[in-house]
């Protein structure tokens, strides 16, 4: 939590530059340093962005749930908007997970989508659940009722994250690769380094986008207050 609270103190332009630099380093590692996978060859390079984007989406949904809890528990006046922005980011990254995953599935398995795969279907359920969050939120007039309903919904959704993450481990037959086991990641060397840098880049990038969107939303809310003052 301290790392996150320290990140809030970093000015937005510095954060944007840092995430851009880290993203460039990650892309260089992906295309010039990481070796070709023995089984999948060049197409495995989708992994370096697909998996970090998936974890970033989970992190955004978890952050949304944490802020929702703060809204309900501490009555933090800023928490509702923060929760909404985090869920919004999660849905954006979730869309990217589904799109990049589909492309990877096509080249690896020969199908854009497999309905028999628990991991895929559960991620889709999680994604659709959070898409419905917006329908709920915008069907209620702005105010405490909207904030409370949205917070409860965001908290319920967080239960689906471990289910989605563990689905691959509890599934009896699967084609989706298991990259993280109880004994650590199933890879090492430059593949691990590249993955870690890409994960750090994506998390920092998501945090930067979160801060940009949150600043815009707060400005919007303040302007609305001024207009009706």
């Amino acid at each position, binding site marked *: 939590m301290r790392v996150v609270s320290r990140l809030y103190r970093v000015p937005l332009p510095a954060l944007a530059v840092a995430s851009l630099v880290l993203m460039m380093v990650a892309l260089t590692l992906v295309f010039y340093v990481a070796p070709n996978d023995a089984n999948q060859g060049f*197409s495995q390079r*989708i992994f370096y962005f*697909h998996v970090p984007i998936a974890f970033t989406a989970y992190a955004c949904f978890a952050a949304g749930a944490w802020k929702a809890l703060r809204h309900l528990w501490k009555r933090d006046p800023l928490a509702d908007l923060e929760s909404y922005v985090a869920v919004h980011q999660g849905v*954006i990254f979730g869309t*990217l997970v589904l799109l990049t995953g589909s492309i*990877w599935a096509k*080249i690896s398995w020969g199908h854009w989508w497999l309905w028999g795969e628990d991991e895929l279907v559960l991620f889709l359920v999680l994604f659709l659940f959070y898409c419905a969050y917006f329908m709920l939120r915008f069907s209620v007039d702005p105010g405490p009722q909207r904030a409370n309903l949205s917070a409860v919904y965001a908290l319920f959704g967080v239960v689906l994250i471990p289910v989605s993450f563990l689905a691959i481990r509890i599934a009896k037959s699967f084609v989706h690769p298991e990259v993280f086991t109880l004994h650590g990641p199933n890879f090492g060397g430059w593949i691990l380094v590249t993955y870690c840098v890409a994960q750090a880049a994506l998390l920092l990038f998501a945090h930067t986008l979160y801060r940009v*969107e949150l600043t*815009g939303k707060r400005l*919007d809310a303040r302007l609305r207050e001024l207009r009706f003052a």
Partner: protein
Amino acid sequence: MTTAETYVTAAYCVVFAGVLVYVVLIALKLQRLEREVDELERAAHKAAEDERETVGVG
């Protein structure tokens, strides 16, 4: 370009396009906020001028 390279390029382009669309939407929102600030500024100036005129006449 091999099939694998085409698909990898497509995946990374999808990510890039997704981020680009997001940035465009944020930019449009910022433009709208700027317009609203301009409107409020004009309304504030007008209110100040009206107040001065009222004081001058009185």
